[in-house]
């Protein structure tokens, strides 16, 4: 059952080949069997089985949608009412969310079965899932390698078939990079497409929720039920959500794909370049035309990102003060000691680093040099994308410089870790949608390709990914 797509499972449920309770129990068994991957922080078995029973009733009444009764899981950044929501941090180890994120409510409304909460880098700050208070997620393809981050638990759970599909969030590549490292598909939608209400904030002008699954088609089905305007999120964009599945098979004849010359330089790992070239040839066979494009300001994306993300993180994380919820230190001497020690004891090293960096960047006398400058650079990068996307339909690029690195390999040097996000970060600065799909293997580890689209062009990205997956089988490979 765990090898089936959402559409196949929905058919099986309707044909009474199996019930949602049976399907859910099957996946819960797999979650237990693969507990060593550390993909889950919290497993909500009882709630999942209750949801499955309700789903079976809906299916029997003929009131089911494609996702009704389908076992999925949420990144532990989405608030789930009465269920522990940690964001991968000791700070929220005792936090039972008093409300649901809009994404959680929307998916509950269509009758999904939530198996639990997935591991992640602490407050989504990390590219390897090594900053989680709950330990590193292991890559199902090689347990010595990282699963990527920050949605590492999400990607590992999909790759190991512990859930049919999952939610993730992406601030600088946190859906796309772990998807590439674990050989699964993941889409980061346009900023404002998916509600951020109840999605614990890291860098509010960059954070965006999205879907991850074993195929672009399943990503489309899940995203369909996640996307849409939400009055509770003041940055949500009030634009209708198109049908993401109707054009999935649209032929790619005449599709114009841009290749940014700044991404395809001699610096690109030779194996990665060869893998991507094979994908380019496949797209040419499918009727696409490639064109070299240039985005000269891309090289400033990493410095601009780390200024903006750190600044917004220092502001967002000021809410964790040990007063209203979350961790509080023992026996505080006074109010300042309460704040300082609660935060000092409960935040991990990477979170502290970014709070310090952001506090400095926003402090009096430095604001113009860092935050304002970074926001100006952000506009220039965004204009590069706008120019290119007026000439081509989508942009093709690597997702990561290499396949998944080994656990512990990059923890000593934060900058080395930051630089590995070179291909994903600029997209968040521009707020554009992008999808990462499996494109092959290097040394038996999966690698991905990235397709970047224009604002609100998720349907096209899903189409371009799905047509490729119709003629390739990289996404169908599974770890042993």
């Amino acid at each position, binding site marked *: 059952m765990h090898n089936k797509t959402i559409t196949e499972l929905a058919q099986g449920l309707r044909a009474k080949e199996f019930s949602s309770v049976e399907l859910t129990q099957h996946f819960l068994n797999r979650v237990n069997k693969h507990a060593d991957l550390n993909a889950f922080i919290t497993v909500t078995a009882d709630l999942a089985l209750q949801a499955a029973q309700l789903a079976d009733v809906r299916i029997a009444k003929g009131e089911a949608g494609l996702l009704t009764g389908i076992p999925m899981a949420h990144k532990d950044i989405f608030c789930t009412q009465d269920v522990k929501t940690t964001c991968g941090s000791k700070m929220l180890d005792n936090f039972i969310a*008093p409300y649901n994120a809009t994404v959680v409510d929307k998916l509950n409304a269509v009758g999904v079965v939530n198996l639990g909460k997935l591991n992640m880098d602490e407050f989504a700050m990390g590219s390897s899932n090594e900053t989680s208070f709950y330990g590193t997620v292991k890559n199902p393809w090689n347990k010595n390698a990282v699963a990527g981050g920050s949605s590492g638990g999400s990607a590992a759970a999909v790759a190991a078939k512990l859930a049919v599909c999952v939610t993730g969030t992406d601030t600088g590549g946190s859906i796309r990079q772990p998807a590439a490292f674990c050989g699964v598909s993941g889409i980061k939608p346009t900023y404002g497409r998916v509600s951020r209400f109840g999605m614990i904030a890291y860098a509010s002008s960059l954070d965006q929720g999205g879907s991850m699954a074993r195929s672009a088609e399943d990503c489309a089905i899940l995203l369909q039920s996640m996307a849409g305007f939400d009055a509770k999120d*003041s940055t949500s964009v009030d634009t209708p959500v198109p049908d993401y599945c109707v054009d999935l098979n649209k032929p790619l004849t005449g599709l114009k794909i841009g290749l940014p010359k700044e991404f395809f330089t001699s610096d690109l790992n030779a194996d990665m370049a060869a893998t991507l070239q094979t994908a380019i040839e496949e797209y040419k066979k499918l009727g696409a035309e490639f064109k070299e494009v240039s985005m000269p300001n891309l090289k400033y994306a990493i*410095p601009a990102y780390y*200024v903006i993300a750190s600044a917004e993180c220092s502001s967002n994380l000021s809410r964790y003060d040990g*007063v209203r919820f979350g961790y509080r230190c023992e026996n505080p001497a006074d109010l300042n000691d309460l704040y300082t020690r609660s935060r000092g004891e409960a935040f991990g090293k990477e979170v502290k*680093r970014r709070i*310090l960096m952001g506090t400095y960047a926003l402090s009096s006398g430095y604001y113009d040099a860092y935050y304002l400058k970074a926001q100006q650079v952000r*506009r220039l990068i965004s204009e590069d994308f706008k120019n290119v996307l007026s000439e081509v339909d989508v942009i093709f690029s690597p997702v990561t410089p290499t396949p998944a690195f080994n656990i512990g390999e990059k923890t000593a040097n*934060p*900058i080395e870790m930051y630089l590995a996000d070179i291909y994903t970060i600029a997209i968040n600065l521009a707020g554009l949608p992008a999808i990462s799909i499996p494109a092959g293997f290097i040394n038996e580890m999966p690698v991905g390709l990235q397709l970047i689209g224009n604002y609100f062009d998720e349907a096209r990205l899903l189409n371009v990914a799905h047509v490729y997956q119709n003629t390739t089988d990289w996404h169908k490979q599974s770890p042993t």
Partner: protein
Amino acid sequence: MLSVIEVKEIAHLARLGIEDENVSAYADDLNGILMLMAQMSELNTDGVKAMAHPMDQVQRLRLDNVTENNQRDYFQTIAPQTEDGLYLVPKVIE
């Protein structure tokens, strides 16, 4: 370059406890990151408008009506310390 003393000042601004033995490591990390950020100075941004939202959307406003129910008791069930509906903190005014 940030000194150890400056890092301590920043930590104080952020109300963030850092163990004394780790301050110099944080200073080294932050100085490395600042060098990375300094690359932005190569780029001329004179006259470029700062970008805060990808679609340059402005903050949406709504009517000033009550939209939420009072759930204070429920929200305080997860608070570290409360009394009579109030959040308790160490005494601030002597």
